[in-house]
């Protein structure tokens, strides 16, 4: 693996960049692996990377039905924060945030993690109460999250409209300064490059059609478009398609897949310094380093596997943006797209072991799992390697839906993303 740096860039510039080698080989599957990861998104590639790097397990294949990073990792609005309410969540997302901060150096790949601050707007008394609850819980959990008055919020994000006569006046905001964004594609590519360099096979355009189990019920491997691949351990990180894959192993999941849309504006010079989320009006916005405004929408009302979604939702999202940032009505939408998010009943992920021996799962991130990528991948690798829960992912079990020990961030605050 050629080391990336200003020096190597300069050297190659002089030779017309003919020296660069491929960042990951496009591998053909071997007959058998120690671990097969289904899904080459950030979570799947990350798990493979940490398996190789931290647990010395390198006989690993990451298999994707399409091109790596082409799922939600490649189509999300990249909001990264950790100011979640419950201890379990705060611990998981904060672990991820710690890893985000060193990820570019760890991967030797600039994922452009940008600590520009994520601000959540409160538009009514209920928002204020629930944000205060988050802020206090976060403080005692050692997670940064601060209350801002409307004026402070405006100072932090000048385009914000804080007029008290607004339909949804801004009554204040919760700001996590350490939070921010990262370059979505680079996360997948960086993990892929790092994993491949350590011997992991990355197999693209190869749908996993079924998970095969032996007579004793344990996992034997995966059926794929390129034939059967033997493996005693299979980890599924297939996001929107997880329930389809798990079904083939006889495990029915508490998941539903919904279309979620996002859009970008034409690129403009820096005008939006941070990330702003408003769950009450359903608007999520930041400005990418390339200059376009990146805007997230809500899910469509019906389940779907088509990466589309309706016009009516986008209309509402854009109206919400114009309501909160009236200077943007003359900005133009450049492109909009959809992804398929897998949603659990309590809006928290399912992460770790399953009732089937040798089968592990990392799913249910719904509209908010990009931020968790390093943390979830890191702890899943541990669980796969040791076949036991990591203290941080232990609460995110399937059992909770049976015993009722839910981690209901949504119910507690109606906070998405």
């Amino acid at each position, binding site marked *: 693996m050629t080391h*990336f*740096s*200003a020096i190597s*860039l300069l050297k190659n*510039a002089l030779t*017309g*960049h*003919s020296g*660069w080698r*491929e*960042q990951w080989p496009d591998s053909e599957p071997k007959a058998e692996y120690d671990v097969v990861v289904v899904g080459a998104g950030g979570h799947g590639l990350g798990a493979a990377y940490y398996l190789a790097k931290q647990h010395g397990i390198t006989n690993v294949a990451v298999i994707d039905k399409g*091109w790596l990073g*082409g799922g939600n990792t490649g189509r999300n609005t990249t909001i990264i924060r950790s100011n979640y309410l419950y201890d379990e969540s705060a611990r998981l997302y904060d672990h991820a945030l710690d890893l985000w901060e060193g990820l*570019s150096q760890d991967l030797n790949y*600039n994922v452009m993690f*940008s600590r520009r601050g994520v601000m959540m707007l409160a538009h*009514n008394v209920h928002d204020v*109460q629930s944000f*205060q609850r988050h802020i*206090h*819980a976060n403080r*005692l*959990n*050692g997670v940064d999250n601060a209350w801002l008055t409307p004026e402070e919020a405006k100072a932090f994000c000048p385009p914000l409209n804080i007029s008290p006569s607004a*339909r*949804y*006046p801004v009554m204040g905001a919760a700001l996590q300064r350490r939070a921010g964004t990262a370059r979505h*594609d680079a996360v997948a*590519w960086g993990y892929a490059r790092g994993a491949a360099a350590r011997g992991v096979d990355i197999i693209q355009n190869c749908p996993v059609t079924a998970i095969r189990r032996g007579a004793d019920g344990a996992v034997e491997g995966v059926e794929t478009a390129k034939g059967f691949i033997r493996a005693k351990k299979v980890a599924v990180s297939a996001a929107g398609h997880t329930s389809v894959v798990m079904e083939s192993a006889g495990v029915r999941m508490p998941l539903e897949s919904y279309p979620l849309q996002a859009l970008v504006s*034409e*690129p*403009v*010079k820096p*005008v939006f310094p941070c990330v702003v989320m408003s769950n009450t009006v359903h608007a999520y916005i930041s400005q*990418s*380093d*390339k200059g376009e405004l990146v805007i997230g929408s809500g899910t469509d009302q019906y389940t779907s596997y088509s990466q*589309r979604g309706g*016009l009516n939702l986008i*209309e*509402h999202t*854009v*109206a919400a*943006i*114009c*309501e909160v940032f*009236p*200077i*943007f*009505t*003359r*900005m*133009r*939408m*450049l492109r*909009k797209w959809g992804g398929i998010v897998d949603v659990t009943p309590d809006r928290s992920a399912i992460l770790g072991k399953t009732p089937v021996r040798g089968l592990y799962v990392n799913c249910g991130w719904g509209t908010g799992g990009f931020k968790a990528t390093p943390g979830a991948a890191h702890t899943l690798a541990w669980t796969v390697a040791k076949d036991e829960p990591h203290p941080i992912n232990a609460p995110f079990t399937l059992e*909770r839906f049976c015993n009722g020990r839910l981690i*209901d961030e*949504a*119910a507690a605050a109606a906070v998405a993303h």
Partner: protein
Amino acid sequence: MTRFRVKGAGRVRHDRPVRFTFDGRSFKGREGDTVASALLANGVHLLGRSFKYHRPRGIMTAGSEEPNALINTSRGAGRAEPNTRATVQEIWPGLRTQSQNKWPNLKFDVGAVNDRLYMLFSAGFYYKTFMWPKSFWDRIYEPVIRNAAGLGKAPSEPDPDRYASRYLHTDLLVVGAGPAGLAAAREAAQAGLRVTLVDENAEMGGSLLSEPGVKIDGQAAWDWLAATLVELEERGVRLLCRTTAIGYYHQNMLGLVQRLTDHLETPAESAPRERMWRVRATQVILAQGALEKPLVFDGNDRPGVLLAGAAQTFLNRYGVRVGARAVVATSHDSAWFAAFDLADAGTKVAAIVDTRAEPGAALLAAAEARGIAVLTSHTVTGTKGRLRVASVRVNPLKNGQVGAARSLDCDCLLISGGWTPSLHLFSHTKGSLAWDEETRSFLPDRKTEACEIAGAGRGLWGVAAALEDGVAAGRACILAAGKEATASSAVAVEDDRPGSGESHKELPSDRKPGRARAFVDYQNDVTAKDIRLAVREGMRSIEHVKRYTTNGMATDQGKMSNINGLMIAADAVGKPPPEVGLTTFRPPYTPTSFGAFAGYHRGNHFEVTRKTGIDAWAEAEGAVFEPVAQWRRAWYFPKDGEDMAAAVARECAATRGSLGIFDASTLGKIEVAGPDAVTFMNRMYTNPWTKLAPGRCRYGLLLGEDGFIRDDGVIGRLSADRFHVTTTTGGAARVLNMMEDYLQTEWPDLKVWLTSTTEQWATIALNGPNARHLLVPLVKGLDLSDSAFPHMSVAECEVAGLPARLFRVSFSGELGFEVNVPARYGRQLWESLIEAGSAYDICPYGTETMHVLRAEKGFIIVGQDTDGTVTPDDAGLGWAIGKAKADFVGKRSLARPDLVASGRKQLVGLLTDDATTKLEEGAQIVADPRQALPMKMIGHVTSSYHSSALGRPIALALIEDGRALEGKTLYVPMPGAAHAATVTGTLFYDPDGKRLKL
């Protein structure tokens, strides 16, 4: 001094000059010009600077696909926008335009140093560097990158313009009004279909506007066009120009955006700027035409280099010659026609350079007739000229070998790499494309919607073919609509100029490939070698190539670059183009202003604001309001200079001391009626209802099937078969929907029906020791004495002369009544009560006081003291569960292991030991404040107020095993200090409820 204007040519009004400014300089154009055509008429080619290298850029195209000529347009305060395509923006007197992405000015731009260092800025360079030292990223690298990024500047003021929207239902929507679209629309209209025809241009006609020489049915093209448009009008076809179909959605739903005022000098102040049409069409015909492809060679981006088809359009449609001395470089016939038209208009065409060995004999003859030199089997390997092309470097090709170069002087270079069908909208539907080796382009294949594609969109070049195909598409739709197609006369076309050609990856060159600056995506500065580098680095999927190089991600969304990019990537990967494939097309077809999506939903119409009949009175009294769900509710009624605390303290004291009045109209109300009403209530609510006598009320608790509290409210039994259910303000719609769901799908056998009466009634709550004294004289037909009408009773009667449904209930702990009258009388009753109440210093109070009063009594607010994870027992409402009932919604879940486990959070009271500190709502509670972070939190404060009745702050909290901790001291760690507080019961005021029994 518009040197390049051709007298009498084009469709602009030569007799109507129009003045506008570009970068502060005033220019003269003609009515009908775009900014681009007007500037070209003035010999201006340099319009902007590129994204990454800040290279000088000019006008490439004559349409909405323009990648380079992006300008800032403005008509004054709040009415300015970046990245407007100069080729689309029509000029009007006073229009101000500016170039972008340059400093200090367009001619001399410091950013252009990037161009010298271009070797460093290879594809994806930023992924490879800016990582060391780590700390530099936030403070230096990223700010620098961000400031370099972006093109224009975002608007800085709110937009005063309005935006509009409509729904439209039509039998047939035709997108594109070129020959194919026009023919299709006419055919269908003749058969009596409701037809809508849209085109993004300022006028209908498409390529016909650039092909005046063609004759259709004996008429000159433009006469035929005019006649056809008249016929369409007469046949009731809805014609929308300046209207772009932006997206093609499920089941033939298309979004159209119509530009209404950007081309007008003085639009009416209230005129909408744009309109979103949400069209539902039974059938759709896509006649979007084709886009011309550039050739990829070193220096193909210099101002003065433009597409041949664009030059033809500027000449024939706008009467503008793009230069005085032209060289034409092409691999397709169509550019020859452009050359001929220009030559005929007086431009010296120095040479036609064609990569093909044998262009048609007819073409060669026509060139010779005009004395145009022709270089066949030639490639283009470079251009010169600082801010405008001055010469072009060409080389002969002999059996794959690039021969010696020669240079041709010129002031404009017309290029054409052939054409590619516009299938963007078709692709939105997930229709599949098939590669056509003959035209070397993708053509529509499998359809997923009821649509036809016609004309150049199907790779049919030429007017005749387009017309014919349009007719055919029209007829197909007529048949599909079950109508009779009239025998259509075949259209005769003369002087048609269809063409053919070959297509290329980057053109062969004799120069070092590593040094070539052959642009594929002009706006994003993506070169052929960037694409090859991406492939070399393992980006073998076209989607990876796109994201790594950003090819096709600029504001033209690949209209210029997709196919050329694909050709080069395919070559680098070593696969045929169809196996590499295209990236996904997504809406919108062209960049579309946010306002068009927002439509009317701005300001106070962003969403409805629901108001009660008494709201206006409260507003007049100076009430402060709070948004609750869709409603706005009076929060408190400050008197001269009072702050919230003072007002609330006064309102509380007045109510407990004598009499308070409260507008409770927003409470949800549902009438449950029918023989099975009581059975239904027993199944829905936790409480038992069978024994509740008519005329009596009961507090009802509603759970979700998961066992957690969803809603609550007082429920009155009006008769054996009829209940008056109240819900929370925010819960009204949800509860009714939930009830209907169970009733319709689980218990369809029950004879009971639900009717929302939330807005049938205005509800006014009277609370306080004098409530009865006030009411007695006003009430007819009901004995209000405690014995006759005890707490938790309901009855029909007359109040202040109005028909009323009177409840005796209390959410304050005081003697309380809730008067329901038909909504139209709400304000009238309110005023009568205020008037009669003056004897008791009646005090109007808002939601905040209501919250304090109920908290003093330990009554919960669903959503504040509960959060979707709280069971009845957690909330101390175990008593509300009908123990004898076999089942009710949520009962089974209450038996799940975690819901019966110890350590659940229970609702308790919390009193700060210093008796002065008011805890913050949401504050967390710990047993040991001295522990290190992360602390073990055992609960949080759900409600906290200053209680004037108790003269101290009170709080409710959810705490693990809280009820067992009563009397214990816990801590609320806040920045600075941890407050000690004692756990208590939730009933702070009048524990034995004497005041209710007055």
